[in-house]
């Protein structure tokens, strides 16, 4: 575990020493701000509705930012040859993946913290509860964590960061449209697809400040499964 933290620390410092971390976070915050003004402040909405609208739109930004942040984690190291250092150190694959995941998860947290001023504006000037804000952010963090795990998984598949983000985005898009497919097909598969959708039914409760254990478990499971997949890919690569 301590070596996973060591890797996480190095990755986190790499985010801030290269332009990627700052550019992604700055772009995400700019987009968040524009969407907040356009969809929440410019509409004649009650403050609770404006907050729900904020969480809805910023969730898309969070997913995109998580994918961009995660795309380099393994792909870049394999491209530049630095992955050899990790691969020949006395580490298990799960320590490598956990360390890298912790770093991108920390970046998602930083992004959420920096966007906090927008809901706080609604809290100060409107009538929203702290609970709504907290649960909404929990949803953002869980969704961002799941998207980061998908991005990390995609990053283990290739040496190219470009291919990595395309693959990650493709997985996310497929999981996003599960709920559309669910409307078009018959039970019981439609219920399964609706429950497996990355955003719609699973994120909606958080958006409105409702903490649902099922949705929480869903996002944790998605993150776990994709991280497990990433570990298995690293293990398999040694045999190739």
């Amino acid at each position, binding site marked *: 575990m301590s*070596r996973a933290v*060591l*890797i996480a620390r*190095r990755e986190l*410092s*790499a985010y801030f*020493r*290269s332009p990627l971390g700052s550019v992604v976070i700055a772009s995400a915050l700019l987009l968040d701000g524009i969407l907040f003004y356009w969809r929440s402040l410019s509409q004649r909405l009650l403050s609770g509705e404006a907050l729900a609208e904020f969480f809805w739109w910023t969730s898309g930004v969070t997913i995109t930012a998580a994918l961009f942040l995660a795309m380099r984690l393994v792909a870049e190291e394999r491209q*530049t*040859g*630095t*992955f*050899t*250092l*990790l*691969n*020949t*150190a*006395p*580490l*298990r694959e799960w320590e490598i993946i956990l360390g890298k995941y912790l770093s991108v998860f920390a970046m998602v947290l930083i992004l959420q913290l920096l966007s906090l001023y927008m809901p706080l504006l609604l809290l100060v000037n409107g009538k929203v509860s702290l609970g709504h804000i907290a649960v909404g952010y929990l949803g953002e963090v869980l969704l961002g964590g799941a998207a980061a795990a998908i991005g990390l998984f995609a990053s283990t598949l290739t040496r190219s960061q470009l291919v990595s983000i395309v693959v990650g985005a493709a997985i996310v898009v497929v999981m996003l449209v599960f709920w559309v497919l669910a409307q078009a097909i018959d039970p019981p598969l439609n219920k399964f697809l609706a429950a497996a959708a990355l955003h719609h039914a699973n994120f909606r409760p958080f958006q409105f400040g409702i903490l649902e254990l099922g949705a929480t478990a869903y996002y944790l499971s998605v993150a776990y499964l994709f991280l497990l997949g990433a570990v298995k890919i690293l293990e398999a690569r*040694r*045999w*190739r």
Partner: protein
Amino acid sequence: MIEIQELCKYYGQRRAIGPLSARIEKGEVIGLLGLNGAGKTTTLRVLACDLLPSSGTVKVGGIDVVERPEEVRRKIGYLSDRPPLYDEMRVREYLQFAYELRGKSSADGKKRVPAVAERLGLERVIDDPVFSLSHGYRQRVGIAQAVVHEPELVVLDEPISGLDPVQIVEMRALVRQLGETHTVIVSSHILSEISETCDRLLVLRDGVIVASGTEEELSQSLLEGIRIELTVRAESSDLARILGVLRAIPDVGSAGAIAALERGARVQSFEIQAKRDVREQVGVSLLQAGFPLLAMQRTESELEDVFLRLAGGTRPNAAKSEVS
């Protein structure tokens, strides 16, 4: 220290190495030689537990690389053909990171890193970012990360590649220095780069060890006897006659004409492969046949010839013309 038995590694259907068997004793400095694509890097990656073998066994310090890879990796420091350097880090923090990554404590690292930097001549750049280093320094930092945790076995994949002549001399000295405290395996596709630094050479061709031994052992076993080059005053029409004279000398294995070693008219040069030193008889025989001898010298059996023969499957001096 290392036991390799019937090691094979496949990439898909293609066999990259094997079957390969070797034994390396503790404290040896081994040179792994082969042309590009011979399987050197794959062999070293298996030894460093970067890759796992398709079949066969590899044991480092008695520990199997498949059964307990983490334990094996603790004993190994590995420099790949491209040093695994994080450009945005400073040399000191990179080495500290590499040290702690091997399960060592941060406090010990703070003492160990400056000592390793000093040993490898990195004091001047220890607080510089890695991206600002020259190629030679990058190689040194790469070696430093491989030895910072004091491994028993140091594996260096082409550490001399791309260095300038001064850096090559320094790197050879460095490898020799490492050999005093570690078992070292160093690979290269250029024989002269490592022949001076290694106790023993393993020559790889098509993923198989085709020869093993010291420089002298390889020379003696593969180059028969000695080679003599000579230049005589003769017309080109006399070539066949001169070759007849040379081949008639006892213990001369082969004789052939080569490009003239001296300028001037009526100058012909020849090369002889003989089981023993036959220079006296050559001189006498040529004089008796009426061909004045201008020059004659014995050329030592060059290791490069051995290497080319073994690694490339080509005959030494194949480019030189022969007149039968």
